[in-house]
């Protein structure tokens, strides 16, 4: 074990799932033609006034409640002043010393052990525009000029700042996964790291074990997947350890995670310490959420992942492993519940989702939302297996075809004539054939070699094109061999 203790604090930004932007009525949805979702407010034209989106406040409060964060009776907005072309107003409306909510915590499960991460604050701010850097390398420096698309400018964000409680890259990743799950379950945010609707920066420093004072930290940015988050932090832990152990010093700076090169490199943005000259936003009046409003939000709070996990375990008697995977994202859990509601036994539904479905999603790099098979279709297919119409093996190829073409399982079965052979006369005939064709295996089996039976079962299955129930063939074959 290293003689250093790792100290990590996270800063997370999540785009809120509102229809319109935070301070104007522009469409807040992702994508679209560049600069097609802007108006005088989010373009920072003179003489306009921002007006706060009620839904954005409600969503941020939902999250604050879920994190046990204390909603401030009075909070205000500040202007964060800086010149960067992604913000047309030259300031970002954010919160400063009177944020929406203070304190709180999130409990995570690290390898079966509960671990609590403290929350410092939850506040609101607006997103910036998107810069496209016109350069060959794609990296910021070296660009000749930059292009700006302000469709994202003014989209509401919630920022979550954690206490410096995290000690390992794994804890950081699990924390982010749990937070994303909460954001999705509460319908506060899409939580798509790759699309940028969920972002995470980390402050990381090392200190000698037992030391209470913090070491010099670096801020790591551009970690846009869970994998990037773990790897960037692991890299940074090794880098700082090596520096300190060789008698060097960590320089306080912002570092950029380069996923292709597997390294963090210093960013040149902080040549000067930023001086944001925060001051209260004069165009927005204070926010004082009434107790009635808070009660309303609390009462209507959707089911949290923790509650869902408990319910899945109790109602469906699923093992913890299944439950963990099925509740990792809200859409996955929803798909599972709809499949069960459509009549599938829970364990069978879970097996198909964790097995074939997940394998397909991984191979094709798809999310559950992209899957064209409906829960009802999956339930129908499971029913075909349960009632013996198709074998489990055939079901796999049927399901694959469903995943690719979205057809109903019964249609595929009918088209391809792949119903299971349950006609025992037909099976008897094939078994007799196999016994006749493989006298050596028959002798081997009778001589006590169990393996030989498996071989003959395989031969029968081959003759049926996989359309027999192997269990049944096994029993019938045994009977034939021992009966003679």
């Amino acid at each position, binding site marked *: 074990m290293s003689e250093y203790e790792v100290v990590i604090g996270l800063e997370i930004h999540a785009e809120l799932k*509102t*229809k*319109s932007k935070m301070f*104007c*009525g*522009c*469409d807040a949805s992702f994508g679209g*033609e*560049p*600069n*097609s*979702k*802007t*108006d*005088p407010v989010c*373009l920072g034209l003179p003489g306009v006034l921002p*007006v*706060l*989106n*009620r*839904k*954005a*406040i409600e969503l941020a409060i939902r999250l604050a409640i879920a994190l046990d964060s204390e909603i401030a009776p009075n909070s*205000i907005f500040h202007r964060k*002043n800086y*010149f*960067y*072309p992604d913000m047309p107003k030259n300031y970002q409306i954010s919160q400063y010393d*009177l944020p929406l909510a203070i304190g709180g915590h999130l409990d995570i499960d690290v390898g079966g052990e509960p671990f609590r991460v403290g929350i410092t604050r939850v506040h609101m701010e607006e997103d910036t525009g998107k*810069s*496209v*850097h*016109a*350069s060959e390398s794609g990296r*910021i*420096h070296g*660009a*000749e*000029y*930059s*292009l*700006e*698309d*302000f469709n994202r400018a003014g989209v509401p964000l919630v920022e979550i700042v954690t206490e410096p409680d995290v000690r390992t890259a794994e804890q950081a990743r699990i924390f982010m996964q749990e937070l994303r799950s909460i954001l999705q379950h509460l319908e506060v945010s899409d939580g798509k790291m790759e699309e940028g609707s969920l972002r995470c920066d980390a402050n990381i420093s090392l200190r000698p074990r037992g030391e209470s004072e913090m070491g010099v930290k670096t801020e790591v940015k551009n970690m846009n997947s869970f994998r990037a988050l773990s790897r960037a932090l692991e890299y940074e832990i090794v880098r700082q350890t090596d520096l300190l152990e060789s008698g060097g010093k960590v320089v306080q700076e912002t570092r950029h995670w380069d996923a292709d090169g597997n390294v963090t490199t210093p960013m*040149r*943005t902080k040549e*000067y310490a930023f*001086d944001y*000259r925060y001051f*209260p936003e*004069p165009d*927005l*009046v*204070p*926010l*004082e*959420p*009434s107790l009635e409003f808070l009660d309303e939000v609390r009462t209507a709070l959707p089911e949290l992942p923790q509650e869902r996990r408990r319910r899945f375990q109790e109602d469906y008697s699923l093992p913890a492993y299944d439950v963990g995977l099925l509740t990792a994202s809200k859409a996955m859990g929803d798909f599972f519940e709809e499949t069960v509601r459509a009549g599938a036994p829970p364990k069978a539904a879970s097996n198909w989702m964790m097995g074939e479905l997940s394998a397909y999603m991984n191979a094709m790099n798809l999310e559950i939302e992209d899957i064209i098979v409906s829960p009802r279709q999956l339930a129908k297919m499971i029913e075909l297996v349960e009632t013996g119409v198709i074998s489990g093996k055939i079901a796999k190829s049927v399901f694959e075809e469903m995943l690719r073409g979205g057809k109903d399982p019964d249609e595929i079965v009918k088209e391809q004539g792949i119903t299971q052979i349950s006609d025992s006369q037909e099976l008897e005939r094939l078994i007799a054939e196999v016994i006749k064709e493989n006298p050596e295996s028959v002798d081997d089996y009778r001589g006590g070699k169990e393996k030989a039976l498996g071989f003959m079962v395989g031969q029968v299955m081959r003759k049926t094109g996989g359309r027999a129930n192997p269990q049944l063939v096994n029993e019938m074959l045994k009977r034939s061999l021992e009966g003679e």
Partner: protein
Amino acid sequence: MIDRKDVEYVAWLARLDLSEEEKERFTRQLDNVLEHAQKIKSLDTSEVEPTPHVLPLKNVMRDDEIKPSLSQEEALSNAPHREGAYFVVPRIL
């Protein structure tokens, strides 16, 4: 006391290019402003709530409804430089 360095720093933050004469003048003027602020600071405000806003208003909000945006052409009509539907800005860093 405001000195020349402070003025240069504030000017840099605001991306202002000041002449020597302006730096001189603004140093004096800002110093006067701060001197006035010092007077206010001498008052005992320990019992007074900070006043971020002077209006007797709170919780002014709108419903989450999409309103028409500007057209791309309108949005870009004041841009000194554009490329396609993007604003072109000087390279960053």
